[in-house]
């Protein structure tokens, strides 16, 4: 078994009396899509926050590419190759699509304490940004102000930003939320094409997409991992049926 890209060891997080992450341990291998599913309020987004560094766990460790990153800040983890997307779209609305992506390219190509050369004229940044936009099918929208894009386009843009970071692991928090059927199809195809290059931790409600994409699935209920297994094992697990999927969906 290859060395895991991401390893969570006994993560625990409480908000007052409520335990939202309860002894969660899981791994993401290189080139693997590991999906986390669970009912609303199961603590999926809180878990993503702890992995990305926007929340600090009360107990446990986050190990990324062999390094303990539990105490690292969110930006530092991002620079180390841990890219995350957000459940609620998170872009710079006043920037063009190209500049949104170029910002991510800039973060990994040399110092940003450069004061005199206009950043929008840096061909190296723009070329890499354009390539990332084309990778998600937004090449023709490069010059559009991000704030005026459609919801689906913003989700694609966010993905392009994550890819432009050249990360090793993608943390995707419901990347399909709010996308129409056609957009979903396109995004699923896109995510499938990314699998070889990155490890992906995918939080998603769309069961069709999860079962089509995931190598392994973990089911989170009340902050605990009930089971981790292959798609087949999850489909046939009785506890999962009752806790989450419902009998109808399995029929």
């Amino acid at each position, binding site marked *: 078994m290859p060395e895991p890209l991401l390893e969570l060891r006994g993560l625990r997080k409480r908000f007052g009396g409520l335990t939202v992450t309860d002894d969660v341990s899981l791994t993401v291998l290189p080139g693997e899509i590991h999906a986390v599913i669970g009912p609303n309020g199961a603590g999926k987004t809180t878990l993503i*926050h702890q992995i*990305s560094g*926007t*929340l600090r766990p009360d107990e446990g460790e986050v190990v990324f590419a062999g390094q303990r990153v539990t105490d690292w*800040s*969110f*930006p*530092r983890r*991002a*620079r180390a190759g841990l*890219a*995350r997307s*957000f459940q609620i779209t*998170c*872009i*710079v*609305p*006043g*920037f*063009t699509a190209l*500049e*949104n992506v*170029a*910002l*991510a390219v*800039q*973060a*990994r190509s040399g*110092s*940003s*304490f*450069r*004061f*005199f*050369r*206009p*950043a*929008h004229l*840096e061909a190296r940044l723009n070329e890499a940004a354009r390539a990332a936009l084309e990778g998600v099918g937004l090449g023709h929208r490069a010059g559009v*102000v991000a704030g005026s894009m459609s919801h689906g386009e913003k989700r694609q843009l966010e993905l392009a*930003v994550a890819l432009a*970071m050249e990360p090793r692991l993608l943390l995707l928090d419901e990347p399909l939320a709010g996308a129409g059927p056609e957009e979903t199809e396109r995004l699923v195809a896109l995510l499938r094409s990314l699998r070889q290059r990155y490890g992906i931790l995918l939080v998603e409600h769309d069961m069709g997409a999860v079962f089509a994409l995931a190598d392994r699935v973990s089911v989170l209920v009340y902050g605990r991992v009930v089971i981790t297994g292959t798609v087949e094992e999850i489909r046939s697990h009785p506890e999962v049926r009752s806790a989450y999927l419902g009998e109808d969906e399995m029929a």
Partner: protein
Amino acid sequence: MTGRARLLLPVLVLAGLAAAPFLGFDTGFAYTLMARAMILGMAALSLSLLVGGAGLVSLGQAAMLGIGAYAVAALDHAGVTNALVVFPAAALLAGLFALVTGAVSLRTSGVHFIMITLAFGQMAFFTASSLSALGGDDGYTLYGRTEWMGTRLLEDRAAFHFILLALLAGTWLLLSALIDSRFGRVLRASRENALRAQAVGFSPFPYRLVAYTVAGAISGLAGALLANATEFVSPATLAWGRSGELLFMVILGGVGQLYGAILGALAIVLLEEWLSHLLNYWRLAFGPLLILSVLFLRNGLAGITAPPRRRRAPPKAAAPKAATLEARADA
């Protein structure tokens, strides 16, 4: 590119200031008025970098101005009047003050940031009031203007006018370059969406601190020039009303455009002068004019001729966002 048209207004204003002495505005009175507008314009430009560029609404910029002015007074008191010492010292001292106070202030955001910059400003004000060697509350009258290579160049009205004009234009060009650079891009992204900047790997704090320090140093230089223009320094230079006035200039001129600060400074200085001739109670008219301008000139004076710049956000984005605060709290 629309860039050219966008630059028309500020270039016209600067050209107008350059031509003014040849168009009959070469009386002592006119020079004094223009000097005041250009110096405050420099300080307002530096504040505009913070407000429009970084989304940092500071109410303590007068402290940097005052520190620059007091540097001139203190050096004058010590017998040092060489411009090559005085002006760098003023900028350095104000920049250092900004660096230290910024390191504390920038830990906060929104209203807290406004309050803490105001508090630091008041600290500087009371410190200046208690400097008995420099006149305390009464202020300090300079023996003469700062010397350039042993000459009294700055006492020549026309020379002083063109030096100020060059420094104003230089400040504008410098800060424009800063806003457009990689550094400025991180600053602008952090203003609009700090969480997004963090997500790609930028921690906003060091970028904001550098901006705050640069703005402080420029205001310090402006303060040193102000001391030379009036040949007098007093705690009034550091009063918080002055910080508010600078903020007015930035907002009236237009937060979305750096050069708006120049327009704002010019407009307020001229309006003050004109209204005070027109009416005894001119301040009564000043307030409503400002309110009307904020209500109806959404992009400020700069917005009259130029549409809001595409790559820069509309001024409303200057308000701190919930996401920003959330990210800070989480960090």
